[in-house]
């Protein structure tokens, strides 16, 4: 195409801009950020993300213009080795556009929130320079996530998959030289390393899946792989099971499922916007996206599907029970996230891809809302604490005189580290932070699944599907839903009701507009998000059905089909009233129980959790996370250290270094060079030859020297003479 022929050929060509705009944002911030000031940095990063959202909206609109037909936007050649040809193309279909909208939409809101949050965070931790770094990482994350969801092959998806892993690592360890309370420690960087290593285990599964796939399918492009899925599954069912289960390991790593979920709670070490964006709304849902994307593979092997669903359900229940026993406001939300991811994995495992994706979207709304509100609460407490430290009005147990802080504020100015995230330090915030309270309440109710908030619709769609196919999964998930409502109730009573259990909570201040306004938008989405897929209409299911066509669409549309054909009386337009009613009653009951335990008689300072008295060791188990971390440590980490010691000391040092390198190789080499090469070949052979050559040259030049008289023009005359003679000879000849 010549420059003169270049014209705008439609919005699909804009697809690469979902990556370009955050790339531009981060480049400008890297190059000019040092001279731009905080406001400009933050808003530039937000605008970059917002532009990506705008492009995603354009893509969605264009896509509905072509009736959801998947578009592949050719972009660039990437790998071309023999038969292996993997271009970097952008796949624009309903599934990927849904993910793009969530990533960039929620991402933009969290960027804006972070402008306010990081402004205070870098001041509490005394390093203003990291403000820019944070937004560079954040934009990089958007880039990587967009690559993940827009790639047209498993390899491109893997690039994004690793990229978001890297961003997650960088951002968990953002304050790498301190712990969450700002004391000098390696706690944060250890959390980052843990997340990174556990994710690598999952990625190994992904790589194995991709390699197996390439071996049997001869391609990693989505289109080519899916086209052969039926055939391979019919002839080599074991291959298909291997691929899907390897992939499940990857999903378990990225989406924090049993047995690889242990990194996510520790990941709360990152700043709160990170927890909201990466560890709740977007990155951790990559696994669900992967399963949904691979729907044509999964539907061919029901056994694998069942295993996936079961993993999800067990994770959902297990994590929900742990969440009950946590005291840290973000830890509760972290386990809640694992639990909800379990719901989604169970849903996509059952083949209810639309339900799973629907829950993914609504969960992104309300979990981001919850995390960000929790961040607001933590900031409020920090501010309250700051206020106290500077005014010294202590009404509670003694605190030491302030000393000059080294690492920020929280630690060294007080004997006893104050943890602004500990719910035992909160209480009564309803009055001091009213806006945050209402936002948090909306998020909690949406998560608990109370009608008519977003969570109600999406969770009940999953439960209804489970009830149809897998009774065991259904029972597990229902219990998990009960626990969900209970721990959210517990958290709300502990944080916002009763009386302040710490000075800081009593002096907490409401957050500024820049923080609360994005929250309000998210709250609105949490309330209205259910409208995406209302009974009878099933907008979202149809939208995704364009992409998950073929067998996938059958399963997806099954809920709707049931409603039309064999619907019992309690199923209305795809909404199973019995299931919905039961879960709502359970949720309300759970909230009531939590009120009895925590709301009626609020906790006081230093009081033991009332549930502990009732359940004893079981609650201790919940509190200690069922000792999973300790078991992993004993089983894997210690053994690994033993093996590495052996390798380093015996194999590497003693065998390779001392014996093989020093004695064997170096000794032989020394002998060869000293005796054979130097004395014999070099001195007697080579030197002698070249010295002789030099001597000859000297003698020859001595006799030729006389020709040189120094007049340039004479030389030229001689040259001309030569020319004339030669030319004459040529003519006469």
């Amino acid at each position, binding site marked *: 195409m010549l420059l003169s022929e270049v014209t705008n050929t439609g919005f699909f060509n804009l697809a690469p801009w979902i990556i370009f705009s955050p790339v531009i944002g981060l480049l400008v911030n890297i190059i000019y950020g040092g001279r731009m000031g905080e406001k400009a940095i933050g808003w530039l990063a937000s605008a970059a993300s917002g532009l990506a959202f705008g492009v995603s909206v354009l893509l969605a609109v264009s896509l509905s213009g072509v009736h959801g037909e998947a578009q592949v936007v050719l972009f660039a050649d990437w790998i071309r080795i023999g038969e292996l040809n993997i271009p970097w193309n952008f796949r624009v279909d309903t599934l990927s556009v849904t993910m793009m909208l969530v990533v960039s939409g929620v991402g933009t809101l969290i960027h804006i929130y972070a402008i306010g949050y990081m402004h205070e965070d870098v001041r509490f931790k005394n390093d203003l320079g990291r403000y820019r770094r944070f937004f560079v990482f954040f934009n990089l994350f958007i880039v990587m996530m967009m690559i993940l969801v827009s790639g047209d092959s498993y390899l491109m998806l893997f690039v994004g998959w690793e990229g978001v892993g890297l961003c997650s690592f960088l951002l968990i360890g953002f304050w790498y030289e301190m712990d969450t309370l700002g004391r000098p420690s390696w706690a944060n960087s250890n959390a980052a390393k843990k997340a990174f290593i556990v994710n690598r285990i999952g990625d190994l599964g992904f790589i194995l899946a991709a390699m197996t796939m390439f071996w049997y399918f001869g391609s990693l492009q989505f289109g080519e792989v899916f086209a052969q899925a039926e055939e391979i599954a019919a002839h080599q069912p074991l291959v298909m099971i291997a691929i899907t289960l390897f992939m499940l390991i990857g999903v378990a790593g990225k989406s924090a499922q049993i047995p690889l979920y242990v990194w996510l709670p520790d990941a709360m070490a990152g700043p709160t916007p990170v927890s909201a964006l990466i560890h709740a709304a977007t990155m951790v849902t990559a696994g669900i996206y992967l399963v949904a994307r691979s729907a044509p593979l999964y539907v061919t092997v029901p056994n694998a599907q069942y295993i996936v669903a079961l993993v999800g359900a067990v994770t959902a229940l297990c994590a929900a029970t742990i969440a009950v026993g946590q005291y840290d406001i973000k830890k509760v939300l972290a386990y809640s996230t694992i639990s909800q991811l379990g719901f989604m994995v169970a849903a996509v495992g059952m083949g209810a891809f639309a339900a799973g994706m629907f829950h993914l979207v609504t969960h992104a709304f309300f979990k981001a809302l919850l995390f960000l509100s929790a961040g607001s609460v933590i900031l409020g407490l920090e501010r309250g604490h700051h206020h106290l430290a500077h005014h010294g009005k202590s009404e509670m147990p003694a605190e030491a005189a302030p000393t000059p802080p080294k690492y920020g504020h929280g630690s060294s100015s007080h004997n006893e580290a104050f943890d602004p995230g500990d719910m035992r330090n909160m209480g009564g915030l309803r009055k001091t932070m009213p806006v945050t309270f209402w936002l948090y309440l909306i998020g909690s109710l949406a998560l608990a699944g109370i009608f008519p908030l977003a969570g109600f619709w999406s969770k009940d769609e999953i439960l209804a599907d489970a009830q149809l196919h897998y009774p065991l999964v259904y029972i597990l998930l229902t219990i998990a839903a009960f626990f969900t409502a209970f721990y959210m109730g517990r958290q709300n009573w502990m944080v916002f009701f009763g009386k302040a259990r710490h000075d800081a909570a009593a002096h907490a201040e409401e957050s500024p507009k820049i923080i609360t306004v994005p929250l309000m938008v998210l709250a609105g989405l949490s309330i209205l998000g259910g409208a995406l897929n209302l009974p009878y209409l099933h907008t979202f299911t149809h939208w995704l059905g364009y992409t998950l066509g073929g067998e996938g669409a059958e399963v997806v549309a099954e809920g709707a089909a049931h409603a039309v054909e064999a619907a019992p009386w309690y199923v209305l337009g795809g909404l199973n009233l019995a299931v919905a009613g039961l879960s709502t009653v359970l949720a309300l009951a759970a909230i009531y129980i939590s009120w009895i335990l925590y709301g009626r008689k609020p906790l006081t300072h230093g009081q033991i959790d009332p549930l502990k008295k009732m359940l004893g060791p079981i609650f201790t188990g919940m509190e200690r996370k069922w000792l999973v971390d300790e078991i992993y440590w004993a089983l894997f980490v210690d053994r690994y250290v033993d093996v590495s010691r052996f390798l380093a000391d015996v194999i590497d040092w003693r065998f390779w270094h001392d014996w093989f390198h020093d004695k064997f190789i170096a000794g032989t080499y020394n002998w060869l060079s000293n005796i054979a090469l130097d004395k014999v070949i070099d001195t007697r052979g080579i030197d002698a030859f070249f010295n002789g050559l030099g001597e000859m040259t000297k003698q020859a030049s001595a006799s030729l020297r006389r020709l040189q008289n120094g007049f340039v*023009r004479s030389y030229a*005359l001689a040259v001309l003479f030569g020319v004339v003679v030669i030319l004459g000879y040529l003519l006469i000849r």
Partner: protein
Amino acid sequence: MDFTLILFIVLAAVAVLTAIGMLVSRNAVYAALFLVLNFATVAIFYLMLGAPFIAMAQVTVYAGAIMVLFLFVIMLLGAEKLPKGGVLPWQRPLAIGLAAVLLAEAGYLLFQRIQMTTELAGPGLEVNSVEAVRTLGLALFNQYLLPFEVTSVLLLVAMIGAIVLTKKEKGEA
């Protein structure tokens, strides 16, 4: 006698006369100016031969850059004229004689060995299409890319060389 032939004869006369002028003028500035004129007439020859790009490059590089550089050096050094006399008195007659022989040989070669009637191919002065320049450029950047790059390196080396040569050492006034 057609128009082109008259033009050619006039230009040829100018070219030879300016070359002789350069050869004999005692003042180096005049020699340089004669040479500029000579280059300009050669550029017109190029135009007549259907090589407009080369013609323009000739004027830009030779007349516009190289000869200005000469004038610069002449004026800066004050080297317009050299004192009379030299150390090689036999050089001049010998050179003139040899040059005459060379010219005779060339003439013999041209008039005896090559047919006078060999006509040039193509339409000549009328060649004025954009394609000609485009073809030249494409050949330069495809077939002759390596020589082109080597030339660029050569120019860079020459530039650095000129700077290093004329740079004054530190401490030297």
